[in-house]
Each structure stands twice: as C-alpha cells, then as structure tokens.
C-alpha cells in the first residue's frame, strides 16, 4: 500500500491549564484523507487536544502547551507561527452549533471570506452555494438565504457551521462531538455528510458515541486521562484491541 501524505504529525504534545496537565504527551500521525475518531471517557482531554491543533486552546486563560504539532512539516507552535493563518488551514466544528447571531444564512457561510477581505460578489456567491450544497443544506435554505442563521433547526445550524468552515477551504477539519447536541435524524445526515467530505478533507472527529466512531472512521484513537492508549485502524481497535483498557472501554466496563 502506498503511504499517503503526512498531514499532521504530533510529537509528545503536553497541554493544560495552570498547574493541571490535561494532555500528557500525545504522539500521533495523521495522513491525508484519514478520518480519525477520538474516543474516550469525558474529561480525558479530547477537546483540549483538539483545540491545541488549531491553536484555540491558548484562548482560555491559564492555558499552556508543550511539545510539537506539525502541519505539513510546519510546527504549529514554533516561534513566529501565526495562529490566524493556522486556523485558516485547520477548520473547526464545535459541539454546540454556533452560527453567528444576527447574521443571515448567506452571511454566515460568507463570513470567513468577506470578513477577511474577499469581497468579490459573484465569487462569494458561488462559494456560498457550493459549500451549502456540499453541506447538504442548499435545497433546504436556497429560498431563504437572507433569513437569520439562528432561525434554522439545530441540525441545520450544524450543517450551516460545516458549510461556513468549508468556505475557507481548509485541508483539515476538526470536529468536537458535532452530533452530540442533535437528534438521530440530524445525526445521520451529518454522518453521511462527513463520509462525503472525507474524500477531499482530512477529518479528526471527537465522539463519545462508539457506534458513530465504528460507522464512519477508518482510524480510531482511544484517549484515557490525557494519554493516547491505542491508535490504529478502526476495525482492529473495535474487534481486536491491543490494550486491555481499550477493550474494557469499548465493551462498556467504564466511561
């Protein structure tokens, strides 16, 4: 098998808040078009880890990071690395749908372009339509693009947030439990959307739902108390885990 291009390479990454160490020396490689699921009991540092990768972690007071995380061989934390530029290459979808309030559906998707100064109307309109189609939302909103983003249902809002992220065309998208606030039908739609997107974007998705991880991901990383216990092909992690702890978690003995 041909080795796919290395997208993210994380080496001994530590992170935390103040004196608390939450992420304790994680190392993992993520390749082009991988769909990696992060699983593990809540509070084990999945979100913190994810937020280190687009430098959003440092937005919290007292946050610190040590170690290396490289995107296409560029260390995200080297001196002079620009978080703004990094974030435009690594998109993020949050647990709770968070469209910009008081912005229309159209403006929400266009925000990443227009606010950063790309104003050419016909181009922006094309991108908005393309991304809404990619996010499988176009048919539902094409007649009310001027309506507030917050007027949509929760599931639609989350797809709007995905479209908003797609509009800046990042090679990597992080998703932090994107369906945990949604009903089963919306969840199914988003899962379908994710499996579509993975053809062109590298996706790391945190999920507390192990069926979801098994259904959509091709690699699974099991986190426990800030450490990476096991990382491998999803089929293997779920059927023949190498670690006892992974097995206990997957079979529901804790978490």
């Amino acid at each position: 098998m041909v080795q796919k291009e290395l997208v993210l390479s994380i080496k001994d990454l530590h992170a935390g808040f103040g004196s608390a160490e939450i992420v304790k020396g994680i190392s993992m490689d993520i390749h082009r078009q991988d769909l990696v699921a992060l699983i593990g009991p809540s509070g084990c540092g999945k979100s913190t880890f994810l937020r280190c990768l687009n430098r959003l972690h440092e937005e919290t007071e007292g946050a610190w990071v040590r170690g290396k995380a490289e995107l296409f061989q560029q260390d995200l934390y080297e001196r002079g690395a620009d978080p703004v530029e990094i974030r435009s290459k690594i998109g993020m979808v949050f647990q709770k749908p968070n469209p910009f309030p008081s912005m229309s559906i159209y403006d929400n998707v266009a925000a990443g372009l227009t606010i950063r100064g790309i104003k050419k109307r016909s181009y922006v309109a094309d991108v908005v339509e393309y991304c809404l189609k990619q996010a499988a939302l176009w048919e539902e909103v094409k007649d009310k693009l001027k309506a507030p983003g917050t007027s949509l249902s929760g599931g639609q809002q989350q797809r709007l947030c995905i479209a908003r992220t797609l509009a800046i065309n990042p090679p990597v998208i992080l998703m932090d439990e994107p369906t945990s606030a949604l009903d089963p039908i919306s969840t199914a739609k988003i899962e379908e959307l994710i499996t579509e997107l993975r053809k062109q974007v590298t996706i790391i998705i945190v999920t507390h739902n192990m069926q979801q991880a098994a259904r959509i991901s091709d690699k699974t990383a099991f986190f426990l108390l800030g450490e990476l216990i096991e990382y491998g092909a999803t089929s293997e992690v779920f059927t023949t885990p190498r670690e006892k702890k992974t097995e206990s978690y997957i079979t529901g003995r804790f978490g």
Partner: protein
Amino acid sequence: MKGIHSSFMLELSAGRKVRNCAAQILISLAALLAIVPLVFVFVHVIKSGMPALNLAFFTSLPSPVGQSGGGMANSLIGSLILVVFGTVIGIPIGVFGGVFLSEYGKGKIAFFMRFSVDLLTSVPSIVVGLYIYSMVVVPTKTFSAYAGGLALSILMFPFVVKTTEEVLRLIPQHIREAGLALGIPRWRVIVSIVLKGAIPSVTTGILLGIARIAGETAPLLFTAFGNRFWPHGLNEPMPSLPVQIYSYAISPFEEWHKQAWAGALLLMSMVFLFNLVARLLLFRDKSGHN
C-alpha cells in the same frame, strides 16, 4: 382520619390564598407608588407647559423683559449643538472603552479603568462642570460650546463604556471562538462579529446616554453659560434648553414662568422619546432572535 386530613389541607390552602392575596396587593401598591409620582409630574408639566407651547416658541428668540411672546428657538438649536458635540466625543470614547474592557479587560490597566469609569459615573455633574470651567473656560477666557460639549461628553462616555461592556459580555465566548476558528484576526472578530451583532443594544445604550445629557443643567451653567441670541460660533456662550428653563424659572416674570414650563414640557418629551426609541430598539432586537 381522612376527614381531619382533608380539612387540615383546606385550612392550609386557605391560609396560602390569603397570604398570596396580601402579597399581590402589596406588590401592586408598590408598583402604584412608582407610577403615581410619574403621572403627577407628567400631568403637571403638560398642563403648565401647553399654554406657551406654540409655533413662536419653536421659531423666535426670547422676547425682552416686559414683552409677551417670544420663544426658545435659540436654546433649542444650542441644545442640539451641545448634545451633538458631547455625543460625537462621547460615543467613540465610550464604545472603544467598552470594547476594550469586554474583549481585553483582564490586566491591571483594565481593572484601573473599570474602577475610574465607575467612579466617574457617580461624580456629580456640577463637579464635572466646575472642572471644565477651570480647565477650558478660564484659560480661553470665554464660555463656549466647546466647554459645554466637553462637559457633556465627560458625563456621557462612562455610561456608554459601561453599557457597551455589559452588552458585549452577553455575547457568548463560543461565538468569538467560531470567528477565530475561521482564521479571522481577533480585531476583525471583535468588529465584524461581536460588535456588529450587538449594534442594537449598543445603540440603546447610546440613546439612553443622550437622554441623560440632554437634560443636564449644572455642567452647562458655567461652561456653555447661555445666550439670548442665535448661536454664532462654537467659541461663544451657547444657549441651551435646560439653562434657559433654569434662568426663566427663577425670574420674577409670569410670562417667563410659562415659557419655562413650555421648555420643560419639550425637554421632558424629548427625553421620553429617546427612552422610548431606545427600549423599542432593544425589544425589537430581543424578539428578532430566538
């Protein structure tokens, strides 16, 4: 056994009803207590102000002592100039200050700033007037619209800082993070997402601030001073509605008293209107979201 029990419950619920009723009466009374003085003031000002509130009141200069008629047109324009002056200085300082405190307000500077803004909002307006008198009027040797507008802006901006900070803080952190996660620089997130989303509420704060300074008399007494003629320039004494009302009200002439009441009615209506618009704006904004 069952009978005793249910009659006990009945008694209990009867007691509760009485107490509930009493509480309701007390609360209604308290509400009435707040509204009654307002109604009295309104009715009295309207009754006393209406007679002199004619077209001439809006279009003519004050008439000399002894002559009837005349109006407050010059004060009206003067007030407009002073309030616009105060607002033009007060809004940018107020909004910038509020943004700074809400978005960057963590360090020592912010703590000190918040503290001074709090203090400034409670400084009596006459003290602000006195300060501007010594800093501007004395050195320039003249009362002026500059001095008056400056005094008003000092009264306005702390209020705008506080309301702006408060409304920006209501915008959840995850909205800012959503903006940052799109690779938008922080200051653009603040301007184009946070501040833009809060425009109706920030405007409400500004309107309430304008309503506050529009009726101020004390800080204008020895800054803008007053004038019986049309305003000529900003570096001259500037008439204003509140000061004109004041000087007419303490005069011994019946005719001027009537004009003072008409001025009071006008001022009250304007302040009332500003408050109303401000609240409507806020209401529309609230009902617009879900």
